[in-house]
């Protein structure tokens, strides 16, 4: 279907299912593709969120600290600095995170609503604030992935709409892909439009279980926000659902009677007895210092698929166990497993790399689809119409410029002085200024050159990272290989691998498609100039 789409697009009077699905698949992919590509890249990076954060604070060295010590040290610090908070959410360190992270919420004040405080990073052994450069770390990519740097709730809603478009695109794509088995292994290089179609099909079909899973489970992660209605159908108050589903005690109101918070060590020990020795991953303290204070311990999920942890709640003032989470019913367990599959916390290191690779395949699926849209509609002898030029420029901006932006975020971490106030925001700004700035500058170049140059820049940016790391810190690639610091060594090597990938893309972008080979049995007229062979496959009449 090499017809230039008219705008406004004609209504689809088609009856054939494959054709209507092909039509809607192209529109869904086109409208959501640019944002989806960014969600895929930042989401894929987020599988290494703690590692990225560690790399971005090279001053810190991880030391394993028992849960009781880390928890009590953090609580002591919070009691010393902000004893009148309403809630402390304490994430204890583990084998991937070297610090104790605390999210504190102040008591609500109707006259002057308290500002949302940023995450606190504390030394796990002493509970003191960390002496390390201030940075968002991997949290930035993670939050961008589902909030798109937009104010709440618009970012999450937009991400949700894009995820729904993705789900519908997957379903329509499968329906429309006629030769799904015949073309399963087909990947032809340098054949122009055919190659892009092959690449789009291959990246989509070969990892189809992953793409379908990640899209659907992604929607489930924010289902409470996207689809609260089934809860409202059964429960007048949403808290009633939470209690019925997870057994969490309703948020207890502070009584106003002060009572000191008991040490958490014995509580953690008691929980360990119930949980066959497992330590808690998270400690939630509500109304500390009050007689009605509660200490909720959330179990580390370990290798279990269900991401919803077991929990036990103790009274903070008396140390008695108040409640524990019930074992979930099948639906709640299903939701928990879906959450777990999306987050991938259960995965060990090699399975996490599988997630990473498949996530990149997802990005490739979206990216090749966007490029295919343009390549299909470009006619060799006609000037490109406005829509085509617009889509091609957006493609360059969304696909080729984002990697440079992400590299810039990491480079900024090394180049901005560690003690500079507000450096965390500057790092984030570096990513967006680079991404959008590069996209704007690329408008000045012809499209083909823009692709090559932006991809070359991404190659340089990623290749520069290990160099800048070695120059600005004492944990460069050689040093970390020598000391067996696998996190830093692996990170630098991964940056080099990504640089190689971008370089390969730039190289491929600079090559022309092969002229079609003429079969020996066909006698070509001697004077005829070669014309590009028409695309015979009407498969996927896109």
């Amino acid at each position, binding site marked *: 279907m090499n017809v230039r789409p008219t705008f406004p697009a004609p209504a689809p009077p088609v009856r054939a299912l494959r054709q209507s699905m092909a039509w809607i698949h192209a529109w869904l992919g086109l409208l959501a593709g640019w944002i989806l590509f960014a969600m895929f890249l930042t989401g894929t990076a987020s599988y290494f969120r703690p590692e990225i954060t560690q790399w971005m604070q090279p001053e810190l060295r991880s030391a394993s600290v028992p849960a009781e010590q880390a928890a009590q040290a953090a609580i002591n610090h919070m009691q010393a600095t902000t004893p009148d908070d309403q809630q402390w959410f304490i994430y204890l360190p583990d084998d991937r995170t070297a610090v104790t992270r605390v999210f504190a919420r102040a008591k609500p004040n109707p006259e002057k609503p308290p500002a949302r405080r940023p995450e606190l990073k504390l030394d796990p052994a002493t509970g003191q604030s960390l002496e390390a450069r201030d940075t968002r770390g991997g949290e930035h990519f993670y939050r961008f992935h589902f909030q798109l740097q937009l104010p709440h709730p618009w970012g999450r809603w937009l991400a949700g709409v894009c995820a729904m478009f993705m789900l519908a695109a997957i379903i329509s794509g499968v329906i429309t892909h006629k030769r799904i088995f*015949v073309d*399963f*292994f*087909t*990947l*032809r*290089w340098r054949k122009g439009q055919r190659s892009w179609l092959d690449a789009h099909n*291959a*990246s989509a079909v*070969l*990892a*189809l*279980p*992953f793409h379908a899973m990640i899209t659907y489970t992604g929607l489930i992660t924010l289902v409470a926000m996207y689809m609260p209605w089934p809860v409202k159908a059964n429960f007048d108050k949403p808290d009633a659902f939470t209690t019925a589903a997870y057994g969490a005690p309703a948020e207890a109101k502070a009584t106003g009677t002060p009572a000191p918070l008991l040490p958490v060590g014995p509580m953690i020990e008691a929980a360990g007895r119930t949980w066959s020795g497992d330590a808690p991953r998270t400690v939630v303290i509500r109304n500390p210092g009050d007689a009605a204070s509660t200490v909720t311990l959330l179990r580390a999920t370990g*290798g279990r*698929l269900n991401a919803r942890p077991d929990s036990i709640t103790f009274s903070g003032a008396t140390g008695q166990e108040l409640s524990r989470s019930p074992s979930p019913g099948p639906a709640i367990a299903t939701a928990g*497993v879906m959450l777990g*599959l999306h987050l991938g916390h*259960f995965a*060990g290191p*090699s*399975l996490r790399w*599988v*997630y990473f*690779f*498949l996530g990149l*395949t997802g990005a490739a699926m979206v990216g090749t689809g966007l490029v295919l849209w343009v390549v299909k509609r470009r006619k060799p002898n006609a000037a490109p119409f406005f829509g085509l030029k617009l889509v091609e420029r957006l493609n360059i901006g969304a696909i080729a410029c984002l990697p440079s932006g992400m590299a810039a975020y990491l480079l900024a971490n090394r180049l901005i002085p560690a003690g500079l106030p507000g450096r965390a925001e500057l790092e984030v700004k570096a990513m967006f200024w680079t991404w959008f700035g590069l996209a704007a500058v690329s408008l000045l170049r012809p499209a083909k050159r823009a692709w090559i140059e932006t991809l070359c820049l991404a190659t340089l940016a990623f290749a520069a990272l290990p160099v800048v790391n070695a120059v600005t810190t004492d944990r460069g690639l050689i040093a970390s290989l020598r000391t067996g610091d696998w996190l830093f060594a692996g990170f630098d090597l991964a940056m080099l691998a990504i640089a190689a990938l971008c370089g390969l893309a730039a190289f491929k972008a600079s090559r022309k498609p092969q002229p079609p080979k003429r079969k020996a049995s066909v006698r070509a007229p001697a004077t005829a100039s070669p014309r590009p062979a028409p695309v015979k496959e009407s498969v996927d009449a896109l």
Partner: protein
Amino acid sequence: MPYESGLVSFAAFTCLALAMKKHRSGLEPLVLPSERVLRVLGWCLLALSAAVAVFRLGPALGVTVWIGQMCVAAALLVLLLSWRPKAATALAGVGLICAPFLAFL
């Protein structure tokens, strides 16, 4: 994470690919079994890769790991097959031979 499942999946997909006429053409000097034999072998190996993963890791994690490794194996095979088909075939054979050793290590 045990890799035997992925190696067996890789071999399985190679068999299924070579059972198709269009992918056999790059391997002239090699004598391949018939299309039918390869197709049956491919499906059997795919089932074996699932069994291996579930046996080692239990149903939930096993199925997850099976699917994950299967997708990676398929993607890598397609890339390799489009670039160097003979290498892909050789790798499939080597992988299949190594898999039992990994399984019982």
